[in-house]
């Protein structure tokens, strides 16, 4: 009996960890997409997530729109915003040291947070969703919110997979991230492709933000915490590997939940980082990353 309850608790934690991990995975996916294409590390990813959640909130509460319509509006708005960000600001710093770019995006993130606090206020908001119910399966509570996150992630990943492998633009993006110069020579509009990648990445972040909104609630700092964990996820998976980002995200999510349930207080937030540090010491290039040596 006792063993059965333990199993139920374990399954419950696994499901919740999976859901949280999917969010980390989606944000990490955004990091990796941009990094693979332009070698920029976008620290503002978490703040794009926050903006996405706020836009959806505005659409639902202020304008009284339907949840799904708000979802679409938010993803498109943030996607366009991401593309504009690339076209106006970030394209200028390609080729500058990585560190400068990281700081640039940190600065942009701070500006977004200020913008959000001035526009929408700095309180905590709830976004009403159609996923209120729960299913009981053998003692395990399957909350629809968590299921919506997992299913949403699966759908998004499926769409992205098909897009990258079976459309002209997707293949052009792959080519660009492999070799910019060769892509130019083949007649691929590299600049446009960069903007598109930013749009996809920002849109993914917005979607993650809306899916996450019922779990953490919406406030201006919701992105920062998620982005730091997602960053750990991306590094854990090996920066530059798309499956690595998703797997890393899920690992971080599971570790967080298991550590929170079994270890003393305080380990919930630090356990993912401890694992990350050990991981980096043992395998500095991450799980799926490849180490390349420069030829001189």
């Amino acid at each position, binding site marked *: 009996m006792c063993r059965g309850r333990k199993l139920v608790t374990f399954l419950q934690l696994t499901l919740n960890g999976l859901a949280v991990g999917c969010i980390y995975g989606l944000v990490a996916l955004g990091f990796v997409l941009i990094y693979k294409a332009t*070698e920029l*590390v976008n620290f503002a990813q978490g703040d794009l997530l926050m903006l996405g959640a706020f836009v959806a909130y505005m659409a639902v509460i202020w304008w009284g729109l339907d949840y799904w319509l708000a979802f679409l509006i938010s993803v498109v708005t943030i996607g366009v915003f991401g593309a504009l960000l690339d076209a106006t*600001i970030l394209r*200028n*710093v*390609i*080729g*500058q*040291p*990585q*560190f*400068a770019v*990281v*700081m*640039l995006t*940190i*600065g*942009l*993130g*701070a*500006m977004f*947070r*200020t*913008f959000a*606090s*001035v526009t929408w206020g*700095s309180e905590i908001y709830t976004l009403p969703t159609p996923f209120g119910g729960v299913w009981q399966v053998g003692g395990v509570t399957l909350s629809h919110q968590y299921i919506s996150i997992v299913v949403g992630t699966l759908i998004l990943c499926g769409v992205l997979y098909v897009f990258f492998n079976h459309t002209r633009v997707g293949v052009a993006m792959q080519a660009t991230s492999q070799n*910019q*110069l060769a892509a130019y020579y083949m007649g691929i509009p590299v600049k446009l492709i960069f903007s598109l990648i930013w749009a996809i990445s920002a849109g993914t972040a917005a979607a993650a933000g809306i899916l996450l909104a019922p779990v953490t609630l919406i406030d*201006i700092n919701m992105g920062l915490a998620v982005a*730091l964990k997602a*960053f*750990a996820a991306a*590094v854990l998976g090996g*920066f*530059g590997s798309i499956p690595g980002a998703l797997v890393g995200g899920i690992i971080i999510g599971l570790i967080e939940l298991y550590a929170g349930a079994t270890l003393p*207080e*305080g380990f919930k*937030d*630090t356990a993912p*980082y*401890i694992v*990350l*540090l050990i991981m*980096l*010491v043992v395998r*500095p*290039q*991450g799980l799926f990353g490849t180490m*390349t*040596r*420069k*030829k*001189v």
Partner: protein
Amino acid sequence: MRFQFKTSYNQDIRLFKDRIDTSWYGLLAVAVLAVPLLMSDYYVGEATWVFIYAICGVSLMALVGYTGLVSLGHAAFLGIGAYAHAYFLQHGVPWVVSVALAVTITTASGIVVGLPALRMTGIYLTIATLAFGVIIQEVFSRWESVTHGFAGMPVEKPTIFGVPFHDEWAFYYLCLFFLVLVLWMTRNLLRSPTGRAWIAIRDSEIAAQSMGVNLAIYKSIAFAYSAGLMGLAGALFAHKIGYLAPDIFTILLSIQFLLLVIVGGLGSLHGAVFGAIFVALLPPLIAILRDSIPASMNEAAQAMNIKLLAIIGEGIGNFLKKPGVEAGIFGLILVLVILLEPLGMYGRWVKIRVFFSTFPMYRGATFKRQKSYMRSERLR
């Protein structure tokens, strides 16, 4: 236009370039020494913050600006120094010994962090230091027997060899002394083989290695030195802030230190000081503007009988009063500096100086950045 004609090696490595340079620094020294005599306690206190931030800046400049290792966890080193110092003071250790112990402990923790960091490059290192910072912050809040957790930890005023440094002006001179000491030490270190090895590592690890620079040793030294300075800054920080709590030493503080070195200008000690002036004085400046802009705009509106001015002034005042605006202004300045002046305030200062010293002959292209197609950091 002034040309320097160097006739010996010693002339090349002098601390101050020539006699004119020396006299300028002398003038600066007099001005800085005179500050407590001329200004009120409030401004002396703010200037003390500048000195403490400048020590932090020099610490990070040695690591980021000269060795090219980016750390997002330096607030943790500051915290370790601050807590260690406060803890030893509480247990009756004399001030000088306590500071020495705090610096030793942070140096040791710097080495511990630096060792795994030797295998990582670029973004991986940044994330590893970030993870370290998060873990240490959690340690501060949980290790209650030493740090008193969120209840906070009071720090007594410094008394050195029985001499009290309780007043603002006394503490000002204490911080000034340590800043000058740190600057002098770092300047000397940078013109020694160690500093040159650091710069070689920053510019190209592979080239440095093939010139016989031992990467492991020099990167460890950089981490240890940087952490040690941060520990010293932490001890002074503890006195200045008076009350330690774990939520001071967050990642946001680490980001602020990086902002300091970038805005000041990477790869120059002047930059560390310029950046410290900027970071320490912007928040009080915003606080002053918050009240004075609406007031002065209102006056102007009444004098000129234009209502619009008063409304604009009030709008600016209300905007500056919103929570989180300060962070946004910092962010905006950071973005503008990286886009428009990647060499920071020191870079701008050098440009102005060159403009005047070469006056009619200034060429705009002197500082033009080379446009490389793409400097890949994937292959290092």
